[in-house]
């Protein structure tokens, strides 16, 4: 294996692996400090995430959300934009999905409802990102500032709508009436039952297929079409892109709309797939988690799927941990996520110089002469 290949493998596999290991090692110290046996905790966490069918279902269910938001962040990132408004876009996307379902005739079939809710989520999520994109492209307002403000706007808007407009008649809780059953995204255990397999019930629904399809589409779009080329060119070198006849304003708008639309799909998994009604705060944490997922996954769909699975595992396993072990609160999940983000994101290249020195050293004079002879 020559030196370049080795470096590629160090970057792609060994480095993320070591970073995660470090994050877990530090987490172990945290457990030890709060008088919890780290090994026991790890066992509970892994069992919770993968030990039984329902747990696996939950893990993949959470993973689905992270794939959507991770892809959303990645698309914007390839255009050189940092979309931290995934939270708001997911939330408003939920409004789109919900409205599409609530306003359609409840007797219609799933073939109408499901595409309609997906389109509703895409459009509303996309539009919620369009405004910051417009402000960035034509008014020069920084996208990071506007998207984060739009998260707050989305939250306020949803509170108002849920409390005053969409609340179920005769109910105090701010949630909409139940979606008609034919609009539900089918549960995986129901589908499996249809084929004669029996799986424990879990919130896992067919949205996970949608997420994987999105991952393929994002890959195709970014690397196999001229529009993707234009987006990546703009992100890598805006001046060169302008020289190449690419219009950066248009790229900002397009990339952000796609990004927002992808974030909006979180609601398909959460609302159409599981909650079956519009509720408050279903989106919390996924938008920001998506940033970490995209970062860890190197903004590539394959990496994002793997990173999303890691985050899904932490989510589900962490919940199990809080449930099973006394002295552990659900906050430990946040601590673990924080450590993963710290070591995989901020300290990404910490081990790199050392690894390269050890595993791919520059050849000495004698060896080169020997090789040439």
């Amino acid at each position, binding site marked *: 294996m020559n*030196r370049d290949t080795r470096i590629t493998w160090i970057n792609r596999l060994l480095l993320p692996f070591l970073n995660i290991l470090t994050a877990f090692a530090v987490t172990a110290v945290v457990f030890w400090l709060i008088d919890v046996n780290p090994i026991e905790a790890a066992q509970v966490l892994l069992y919770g995430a993968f030990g039984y069918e329902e747990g696996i279902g939950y893990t993949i269910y959470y993973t689905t959300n992270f794939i959507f938001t991770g892809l959303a962040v990645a698309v914007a990132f390839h255009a050189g934009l940092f979309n931290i408004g995934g939270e708001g876009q997911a939330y408003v996307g939920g409004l789109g999905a919900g409205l599409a379902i609530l306003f359609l005739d409840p007797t219609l079939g799933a073939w109408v409802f499901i595409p309609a809710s997906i389109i509703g989520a895409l459009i509303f999520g996309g539009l919620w990102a369009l405004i910051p994109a417009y402000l960035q492209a034509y008014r020069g307002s920084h996208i990071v500032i506007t998207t984060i403000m739009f998260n707050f706007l989305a939250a306020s808007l949803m509170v108002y709508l849920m409390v005053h407009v969409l609340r179920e008649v005769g109910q105090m809780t701010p949630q909409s009436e139940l979606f008609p059953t034919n609009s539900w995204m089918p549960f995986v255990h129901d589908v499996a039952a249809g084929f004669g397999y029996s799986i424990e019930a879990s919130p896992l629904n067919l949205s996970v297929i949608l997420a994987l399809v999105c991952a393929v589409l994002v890959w195709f779009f970014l690397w*196999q*079409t*001229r529009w*993707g*080329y*234009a987006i*990546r*060119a703009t992100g*890598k*070198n805006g*001046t*060169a*892109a*302008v*020289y*190449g*006849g*690419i*219009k950066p304003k248009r790229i900002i708008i397009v990339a952000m709309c796609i990004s927002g639309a992808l974030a909006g799909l979180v609601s398909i998994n959460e609302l159409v797939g599981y909650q079956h009604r519009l509720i408050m705060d279903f989106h919390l944490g996924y938008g920001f988690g998506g940033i970490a997922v995209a970062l860890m996954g190197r903004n590539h769909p394959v990496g994002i799927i793997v990173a999303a699975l890691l985050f899904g595992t932490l989510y589900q396993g962490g919940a199990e941990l809080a449930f099973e072990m006394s002295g552990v609160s659900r906050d430990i999940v946040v601590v673990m996520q924080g450590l993963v983000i710290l070591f995989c994101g901020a300290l990404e290249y910490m081990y790199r110089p050392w690894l390269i020195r050890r595993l791919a050293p*520059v*050849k000495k*004079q004698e060896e080169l002469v020997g090789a040439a002879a």
Partner: protein
Amino acid sequence: MNKIMTDTFAIELTDIDKRFGAVHANNKVCLQIKRGNIHGIVGENGAGKSTLMSILYGFYQADAGQIDVLGQAYTFTDSHQAIAAGIGMVHQHFMLVENFTVLENVILGSEGGALLASGLADARTELTRLGDEYGLKVDLDATIDTLSVGLQQRVEILKALYKGAKILILDEPTGVLTPQETEELFRIFGALKQQGVTIMLITHKLREIMSITDQVSVMRAGQMVAHRDTQDTSREELAELMVGRKVLLQVDKKPANVRAPLMKVKRLTVADSQGIERLKDVSFELRAGEVLGVAGVSGNGQTELLEALSGITAMTSGSIEVLGFEMDAKNPLTPDRLRDMGLAHVPEDRHRMGLISDFSASESALLGYHKDSKINSGIWLSNSKVEANCQALMAAFDVRPADPNLKSANFSGGNQQKLILAREMERNPDVLLIGQPTRGVDIGAIEFIHQRIIDMRDAGKAVLLVSVELDEIMSVSDRIIVLCDGEISGRIDAADADERTLGMMMANALDPIDPLQTMDDQLAFAKQESNQEAQV
């Protein structure tokens, strides 16, 4: 006394070795520089000159070898140690704080305490002394951004001397200067030499080496291949040593066969975002079958001219008629539209604009042409076609290594430039705009690139060549216009141009514009217009 002084070397490098990955940047380099001499180092880009200087200045550490400065052995781990040993460096890009005064810039890093007043006063006396001694006069209270490039460079030299430099290293010091400023710089070198300062001059301009240095050393592919006393060598020999084979220093070309104008620029004015006019009232014609050279000191409107002509920068007023289409401030044409019409553009700065360093060569070779139907099948941008396209370009322009999947950043400057030229020239455009085609390109490739430009001209294309290298302008162009401060300060036929005249025009020191020349141009213009009216 003087005899003894020159016996010890100012700098003695023994077996300096340095590798970057697989690249052997310096291979057992030995160099001896006599005290009080001006010593030139020449070599192509990537020959290892800059690495050697960085090692000498403490930016990099050598893997092996010894450095002696003024008879004492050193191991530099940062530039402070090099400065303490008496080495001063003037970089190609000045390291000055633009809105500080000369005095403030000089004491930066040696303020001498928390309060500035005493440090500034001491510096003032010292700088006045240095200025008198070496003939380095600068207004100490002027802010840097009000100084010309030549004066800014003088500040850099003062800064080095103020820090006690006995040995000055200058990296391509004349790249940004007019010929007159260059002469002034060489005069300063003379004064410094008389005071016993040793000067190490790194350049690729052989003419300067011949005129100013005492000794010259040639680097090629990381090795020192020759040391010569300047009086015993010639430009031809040095060029041959640098490249490793005989080089044609003159471009071989037939007389131009000039035809109808393909581009007419009328009173073009371009203002930047602050409203400052970078290009003022520029008018000229570009005709099929000719190379029109645009000379000028870098930063006098050349960038704005290229960008306005290629549709990248909006113009403020004026109009451009190109290939039968007209554009002005209200009706701009976009870069992609102009490209479709047959206007190609090789930008001045290949890293900033010409290619995308992180992209593979095949993706960079697509820049500007990613919508081409030959490469797209429906919505699918076919990777195999993209690679084939790049492979063809690489073959046509001998780009090495011919690997379309290699990252653009990993090609040498010359090969990056060849890839860009291939991309723009192989589509057979009618109008070709080229900015600094050979900047940072080695001599072997320069020859090749010039030949390709001449081939385009002979095929009846119109070529606009912007370059700060006067040799290039004079040998490749048929007609020359000179830009100074955004205005055309001279027009001349290449056959009549010499370095002195162009230099005067570049500094706008010549009588406004040769009246005969202008009249010729106006007559030609009037004739064409009447022809057009006749056709209508």
